[in-house]
């Protein structure tokens, strides 16, 4: 019973926040003169035919996988008290390098994908190493350096596509792109799995990389909760001073955490790259996962399980975008709803925490009448 209550206490603020977010969005939709009920129906509308429903689920999965990985990458920094805004630049660099080098090497199928994945992780980690080194040697704030490195990443990526990685057989009038990845580097889709599960097969590629994302999520969860590195990471995040007193080098932890975060960031772009794009093309490259990942990590409270749920929620809302537009709701409604969800979760969390603290204080006072509060100069 107490256990159920404890579980309820943890989940309740989120549910309240979701309710608040829905209500605020409904008001917004009312203001622009549309019907919020119709919008809600459209939000949960997966299509009428089994094929359309399977398609919708496919879109949901394709969007959730990179969001989950991005949230995971950001959360590693957060757990340690580091604000890695640079996931955006790290995954761009990693995706370009993976696409470029991946097309240049010849390997059998599973090995090729594995090597590309490792290349992407290494590239992401290498790009994250720059702010880490700047921080531990010169004390440069990682917030500033990662923002700036995001801008630099766009330039580096543009150079890499243009010079070393450019496809020599570009068609007439085509913008530059990297050489297409050979068949052996195409990640098998999940379309047939739908059939095995008794559903219709989606008519569009469903990225199989989501399986890798789930495995990575489990591994990260185990590392955080069961390994020495995870303990040191969490300890440094809770109190750097206490961690240092216990023999944990904060400098080494900064470097390790940033490299870990960057390596995870390197995976963000692979779902699209190996699943359907098969080359890096700046016009169709989806930018912005690194920033949305911050919101996903916050919503998921920096825990892998929570981040997975948050990524599913964000992807669910994104998936409904075109459907909502058919109902006359502008696409910004989805972005607004996502923003409000994050805000309300944070606010409800804070309110719940304060109430809890006040209750604890009251109980402490009631138990020990002799204690009088001492004013401390602040």
């Amino acid at each position, binding site marked *: 019973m107490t256990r159920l209550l404890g579980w309820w206490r943890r989940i309740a603020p989120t549910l309240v926040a979701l309710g608040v977010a829905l209500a605020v969005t409904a008001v917004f939709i009312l203001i622009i003169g549309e019907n919020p009920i119709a919008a809600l129906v459209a939000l949960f509308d997966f299509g009428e035919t089994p094929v359309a429903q399977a398609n919708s689920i496919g879109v949901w999965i394709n969007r959730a996988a990179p969001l989950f990985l991005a949230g995971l990458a950001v959360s590693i920094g957060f757990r340690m008290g580091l604000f890695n805004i640079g996931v955006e630049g790290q995954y761009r660099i990693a995706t370009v390098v993976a696409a470029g080098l991946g097309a240049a090497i010849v390997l059998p199928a599973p090995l090729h994908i594995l090597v590309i994945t490792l290349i992407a992780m290494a590239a992401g980690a290498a790009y994250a190493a720059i702010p880490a080194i700047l921080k531990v040697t010169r004390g440069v704030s990682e917030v500033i350096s990662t923002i700036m490195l995001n801008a630099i990443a766009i330039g580096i990526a543009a150079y890499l596509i243009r010079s070393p990685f450019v496809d020599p057989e570009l068609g007439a009038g085509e913008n530059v792109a990297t050489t297409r990845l050979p068949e052996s580097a195409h990640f098998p889709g999940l379309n047939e799995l739908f059939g095995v599960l008794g559903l219709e097969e989606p008519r569009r590629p469903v990225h199989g990389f989501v399986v890798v994302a789930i495995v990575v999520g489990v591994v990260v969860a185990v590392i955080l909760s069961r390994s020495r590195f995870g303990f040191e990471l969490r300890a440094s995040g809770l109190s750097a001073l206490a961690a240092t007193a216990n023999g944990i080098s904060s400098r080494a932890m900064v470097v390790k955490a940033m490299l870990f975060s960057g390596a995870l960031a390197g995976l963000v772009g692979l779902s699209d790259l190996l699943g359907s794009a098969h080359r890096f093309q*700046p016009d169709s490259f989806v*930018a912005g996962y690194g920033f949305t990942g911050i*919101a996903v990590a*916050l919503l998921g409270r920096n825990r892998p399980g929570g981040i997975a749920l948050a990524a599913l929620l964000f992807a669910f809302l994104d998936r409904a975008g075109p459907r909502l537009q*058919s109902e*006359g709701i502008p696409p910004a409604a989805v972005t607004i709803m996502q923003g409000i969800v994050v805000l309300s979760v944070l606010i409800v969390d804070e309110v719940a925490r304060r109430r809890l603290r006040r209750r604890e204080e009251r109980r402490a006072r009631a138990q020990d009448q002799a204690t009088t509060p001492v004013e401390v100069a602040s």
Partner: protein
Amino acid sequence: MRRVMKLAAGFATAAMLLTACASDDDGTDDPTTGTDGEGASGEDVQVGMAFDVGGRGDRSFNDSAAAGLDRAGEELGVTFQDLSPASDGSNRDELLRELADGGHNPILGIGYAFFEVMDTVADEYPDVQFIRIDGPPSDRENVAVMTFAEEQGSFLMGVAAALKTETGQVGIVGGNEGEVINAFGAGFKQGVEAVDPSIEIEDQRLSPGEEPAGFADPAGARVAAEAMYQRGVDIIYTPAGDSNVGTFQAAAEAGKWAIGTDSDQYETVGDPELQEAILTSMLKRVDSAVFESINTFIEGGDVESTSYDLSDEGVGYSTSGGFIDDITDELDDYKQQIIDGEIEVSRTE
């Protein structure tokens, strides 16, 4: 840790608000359903259109396409639906599929970025006619590509700038270094050189490579243009989509000229102060291409890939404001030479 989280929360919220503001100021322009016109054969046709990032209401490229669509609704009586992509452009393919699933045919995709996704979706819906504006040719039977000779229109803008400059310095503020914007830049430079090879030309792009962010960066365009004007440039050609307004602001402030692109920006900019700084605009008649391809489809013809240029008025220039009335003779002279093939304008430098 707590402080970092608060900072993070603030940052995440700001980022989301920014993307919400940046992308879609089309809150008032809901996807419209066309009026039931009196057109005889168009009424059964449901046209679908997917815009590029920025959507309906960008006052430039997308709006030019929207104008063609609206005209088809009025004059041909077609019903239509238009959709705008997410701010990160991640769901262009989904927009096309949503339109196809909704029974729309033909379906138009506005912009180069539909290049690969349209081919993919066209394979999934072989009975639907897809039409793309801009980009390389497609080998799919049900995909038609409408392209424009941006270099020819830009050549005339280069001529106009060369004739109007007093300082002997002109500039380009472009969105990025992609194929389309390079064609704008190359044409402009050839036009300037045709008049006076001694004129200096500055060329600056807002984003490196093919990065599309430069088309939604008015602040960046303003900074770049201000610096150019300070260095003595007195006319700037600005093929940068949504960012153009930044160049116009800098021009109005410095009391210099700017040349708009895609739409007649003297008419679309919506601010009398900025109007006074817009010398002319290079017109890219996306609206005509959209209207004509829908018309062809209704009449039962094959919608074929077409390349629009000066000879069919697919590109041209605007005279709104009357600032170039004194040189239109010369411009038309060059225009005729290009149409006759006496001058060949290259898309690349």
